[in-house]
């Protein structure tokens, strides 16, 4: 816990934001050097904000390194299955360990046989989508992260780390697409569809007005995503990682369901949302079965394929996570208050009481 207190790094933030770290009041006894602020160079940009305990350990290790540049991280600029490029030749100069098989990602199969989604998504389409596209992402990712800082990380952490706050490293697209596709396959089930129920339905009706409106918004997002991308239903419970950002009127409504669309490989994890449902609107997802009729594909997905049970369970996790974070925030605020009130009063040098003598 010591790592989480005074030396607590502002995890996941780049150099500029490190200066916004929570300033503790100076220790009593005068103007000693202000502790706590990690220099920009010490903040490893690659550590995301999720599991607190694990992260603080990693951060203390990582803080000794400088902010990694792409060359240092040794990412080859291409997936090795492509033609060799002139650019990548100069980059193989980073420390390389023998790749540990356990650290490499595996291609996870969907939780149903490949022909289980017929007739809505044909076996051939699923086979290509999972077996070729996703597999090539896995292969490329394993090649790209071998011997780098990202090796051995959990996939979610890897996605956020590789995104590097908008300046993505080359493995980002592969990691993100693997995560997105896993999420996508799990969002579906044979004989799916129907309507959600329980907490999920309550929240949908609270945040969108009605289930139909939510569906309409989701379909609109999926259809208006220009180019390749994804449409999402996500639970938004993000917060600023700035210590003195206090919500003056916290309410349950701050955490809400939102519909979002993202281009290419981006996903709402990068905005600190909790995704609940994903629709792949890359053309390869539907072209074999629906050709250019994206609207039919999205309607079929929502009517016949989506698994609302999985979405509900994701929502539960998301709500739990949000309440835990709220508790952590609350505790932090209380600690702050305690410290502020328990501090000895600052010595102030006032004029002496017999002030009046001067005026006489």
């Amino acid at each position: 816990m010591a790592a989480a207190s005074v030396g607590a790094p502002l995890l996941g933030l780049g150099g500029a934001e490190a200066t916004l770290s929570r300033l503790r009041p100076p220790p009593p006894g005068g103007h000693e050097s202000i502790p706590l602020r990690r220099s920009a160079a010490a903040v490893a940009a690659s550590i995301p904000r999720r599991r607190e305990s694990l992260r603080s350990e990693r951060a203390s290790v990582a803080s000794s390194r400088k902010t990694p540049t792409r060359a240092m991280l040794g990412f080859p600029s291409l997936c090795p299955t492509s033609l060799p490029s002139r650019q990548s030749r100069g980059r193989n100069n980073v420390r390389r360990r023998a790749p540990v098989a356990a650290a490499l990602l595996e291609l996870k199969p969907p939780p149903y046989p490949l022909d289980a989604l017929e007739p809505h998504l044909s076996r051939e389409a699923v086979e290509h989508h999972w077996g070729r596209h996703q597999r090539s992402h896995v292969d490329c990712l394993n090649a790209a992260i071998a011997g780098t800082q990202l090796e051995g990380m959990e996939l979610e952490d890897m996605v956020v780390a590789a995104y590097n706050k908008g300046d993505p490293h080359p493995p980002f697209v592969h990691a993100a697409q693997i995560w997105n596709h896993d999420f996508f396959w799990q969002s579906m089930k044979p004989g799916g569809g129907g309507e959600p129920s329980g907490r999920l339905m309550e929240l949908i009706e609270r945040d969108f007005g009605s289930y139909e409106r939510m569906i309409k918004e989701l379909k609109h997002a999926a259809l208006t995503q220009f180019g390749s991308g994804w449409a999402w239903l996500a639970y938004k419970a993000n917060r600023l990682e700035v210590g003195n950002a206090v919500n003056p009127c916290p309410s349950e409504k701050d955490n809400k369901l939102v519909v979002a669309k993202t281009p290419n490989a981006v996903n709402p994890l990068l905005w600190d949302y909790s995704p609940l449902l994903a629709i792949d609107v890359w053309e390869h997802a539907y072209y074999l079965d629906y050709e250019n009729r994206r609207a039919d594909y999205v309607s079929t997905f929502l009517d016949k394929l989506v698994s609302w049970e999985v979405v509900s369970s994701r929502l539960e996790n998301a709500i739990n996570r949000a309440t835990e974070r709220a508790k952590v925030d609350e505790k932090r605020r209380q600690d702050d208050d305690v410290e502020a009130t328990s501090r000895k009063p600052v010595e102030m040098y006032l004029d002496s009481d017999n002030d009046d003598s001067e005026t006489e």
Partner: protein
Amino acid sequence: MRFQLLRSPSPSSSCCGYQIPFQPSNGVLLLRSSPMKIPKSHTKKKLSQSRRASEVLAYYGLTTPPYKLDALEPYMSKRTLELHWGEHHRHYVDSLNKQLTNSPLYGYTMEELIKVTYNNGNPIPEFNNAAQVWNHDFFWESMQPDGGNLPCGGLLQQIEKDFGSFSNFRDEFVHSAMTLFGSGWVWLILKTNERRLSVVRTSNAICPLVWGDIPIICLDMWEHAYYLDYKDDKRTYAINFIDHLVSWHAVTSRMMRAEAFVNLGEPKIPVA
């Protein structure tokens, strides 16, 4: 003169069956004022000044590729062309026309429209449709049945000068196609400032016209262009394009115009 309502072309109607004489893409693609024999019902005129007619007509039409839809077999199937041209390209044209009704963007050539709607990097919604219409026109014209092989003469020399050899260019082009992530295009452009050829990739609808370079060849790397024929094998698609589909005749004529533009500069029209 009676103004007639021009219905937006629908896939089932045949009003787009007439051939617009193919205009070179670097020249002015001004459908409105080109003097060609168009049946009266297809005249495109803006009626905003006229009080009598309240309908605004379509502005841009769908050009047909200069070959039959099955002419590019076996490298690009008829079904792909039917969908790609008949559905995707047509949809872009229709959407653009719909967006331009009652819009202040009037009277532009397609190239000008692209630059204006690109808005120096902050594109307005019309940009995607306008650019995609232009890009697809350019793409159909970049191909021909029995294309490919080697360019001849001056073009080959220029390629060898700028890439080292033709196979270097080919490798670079195919490599760009394979490493493009997401939807986009691969271009061979003539850089106006450096006066040399170069291969670039752009994403979604971006086109080198917006930054001032001159496109010479383009290859559509949106998945709808190749998925039915090649599934995820982008490499074979790009190789087949360069080896068997690209129309070096069209490329040569584009190169000639581009070189003239670059060498002689923009035409200076003297003002009295």
